[in-house]
């Protein structure tokens, strides 16, 4: 721990609320993309598997958004915004998800490549979060401890498919490599040390995003090589999602997701 960090005994709730929103938004927006697969998967088993992953991510999103709303209320003095307030009544610029989860679902190979990246990242993140035994934030650690078990399965699912597609037929090999190539420009953004994350990390509340990278890369490389594929070397990198600067896709995801509650404000469902 750096001397500077030792001084920081308390984190600003603003940073914590924004951090939870970011994680919750990642999970929520990917739920939307995975939900699009249901009734469109290559086989019924995958309709179920992708639905199951979507359901887990939605559960994580709900817990994280609820908590973000509670933390936020400690400094706004307003009543806490609920998970639904946050999901349905924020605009594009207020979302904090990474570009990776916003991208259209693509073909099955793209979706698997994205899931490989995201689940590996989530596993690294949640396992570190849940191991922060002395965490000053037991709520976040608790959410992570539950989620890490789910994400372990998601990661396995994505790895198994990466192997099958990479080492299956010529066509599946080509598509899986193309899927990885398309996804890789969005990898870097996951490990950005935002101001909020850095502040929280220095207080020992969360791991520093960049510190998760090595573990993830080791795991990806092993699977990708076993699948006879190559780890892409992208020439462009997405950035800005955590600050509300998104790809153009997010607006459409939100328009679809939010339109009913916004058309009937004040209604309960």
């Amino acid at each position: 721990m750096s001397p500077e960090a030792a001084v920081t005994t308390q984190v600003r709730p603003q940073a914590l609320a924004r951090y939870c929103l970011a994680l919750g938004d990642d999970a929520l927006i990917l739920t939307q993309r995975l939900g699009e697969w249901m009734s469109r998967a290559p086989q019924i088993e995958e309709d179920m598997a992708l639905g199951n992953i979507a359901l887990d991510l939605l559960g994580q999103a709900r817990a994280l958004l609820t908590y973000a709303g509670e933390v936020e209320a400690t400094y706004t003095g307003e009543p806490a915004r609920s998970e639904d307030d946050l999901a349905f009544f924020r605009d594009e610029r207020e979302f904090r998800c990474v570009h990776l989860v916003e991208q259209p679902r693509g073909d099955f190979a793209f979706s698997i490549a994205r899931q490989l990246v995201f689940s590996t990242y989530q596993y690294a993140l949640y396992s570190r979060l849940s191991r922060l035994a002395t965490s000053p934030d037991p709520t976040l650690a608790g959410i992570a401890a539950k989620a890490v078990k789910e994400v372990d399965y998601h990661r396995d699912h994505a790895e198994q498919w990466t192997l099958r597609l990479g080492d299956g037929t010529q066509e599946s090999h080509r598509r899986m490599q193309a899927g990885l190539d398309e996804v890789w420009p969005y990898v870097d953004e996951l490990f950005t040390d935002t101001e909020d994350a850095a502040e929280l990390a220095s207080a020992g509340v969360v791991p520093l995003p960049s510190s998760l990278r090595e573990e993830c890369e080791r795991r990806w490389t092993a699977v990708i090589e076993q699948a006879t594929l190559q780890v892409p070397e992208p020439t462009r990198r997405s950035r800005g999602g955590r600050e509300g600067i998104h790809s153009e896709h997010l607006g459409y995801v939100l328009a679809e997701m939010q339109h009913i509650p916004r058309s009937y404000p004040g209604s309960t469902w």
Partner: protein
Amino acid sequence: MYGNDFSTEPSEPLNAAETGGVEQAMAHEDRRAQLLSEAEVADRQEQFDALIAADQRIEPRDWMPEAYRKTLVRQIAQHAHSEIIGMQPEGNWITRAPSLRRKAILIAKVQDEAGHGLYLYSAAETLGAGRDELLDALHSGKQKYSTIFNYPTLTWADVGAIGWLVDGAAIMNQVPLCRCSYGPYARAMIRVCKEESFHQRQGFEILWALSRGTSEQKAMAQDAANRWWWPALMMFGPPDAESSHSEQSMAWGIKRFSNDELRQRFVDMTVPQAQKLGLTLPDPDLRYDEESAHWRFGEIDWSEFKRVLSGDGPCNAQRIAHRRKAHEDGAWVREAASAYAAKQAKRTAQAREEAVA
């Protein structure tokens, strides 16, 4: 697990799976061994007849008449296809569910439907009909699915109406199938009915929330009830006088009650629920008959049923095109999975040989 936390007299059964039929089927006493060991029933047709007469289950390895097998394959396949096609009208609302809780319930429901499809295709497989072959028959239009799924889900309230009415009608049809003479089908139905019962309650709960909401929400619920009521009644099939497969299926213990009988039970159970929801049903002839203690309902428009069944419904072409596209788009994935499995098997065999050598 999800939902069901509303308090509309929860002790009161809301669908046919909550009135003891499933438990009754689960309590079925297996006397196959005893019956089959009796020497006088050595002939295979006689054995089959004796099992049916004693209300015992026929199991996959038993001899069975070809017509019995064909009837079951047709019925189970149609049922499996209905689960798979049924994912579409509801899946249509996953990305638009109006709260995160509703979204979770809906994803879980559509996932259950995929699961039901799987158990049912497996049950058909025990009769020698493979999933690929059955899916081809669905895609080519050779086999049918429930015509109810040829109607569109136009508003959020439709998701509620499907749960309440369509799942309610399906459960009414399926609870007696938990006692079907074919063992794998009966066992699949027990599991399916339990899950469907949740879905029906969740659908009722969606409408319950709308019916206590704003005037716009109430109107949405009423509109959905208006559009789904008659198609739900049609789900029980043509009137008894015109039902072509019924008699033989009854004799074989596949079917237990007639179409009209089940339809009447459904109406009797559902009308009071509509009243509780504050919804009217679109039938001017609907009235309670004190003498028979039944709700009497008006004439069903069978010409519409036949029209939709024959392909001229609002979504027939769309449902099949969607299903075929998913299947065709996924062909390379399934091929890759087979190719990989074959490579793996070869590698394992090679490794074993090397170990021996």
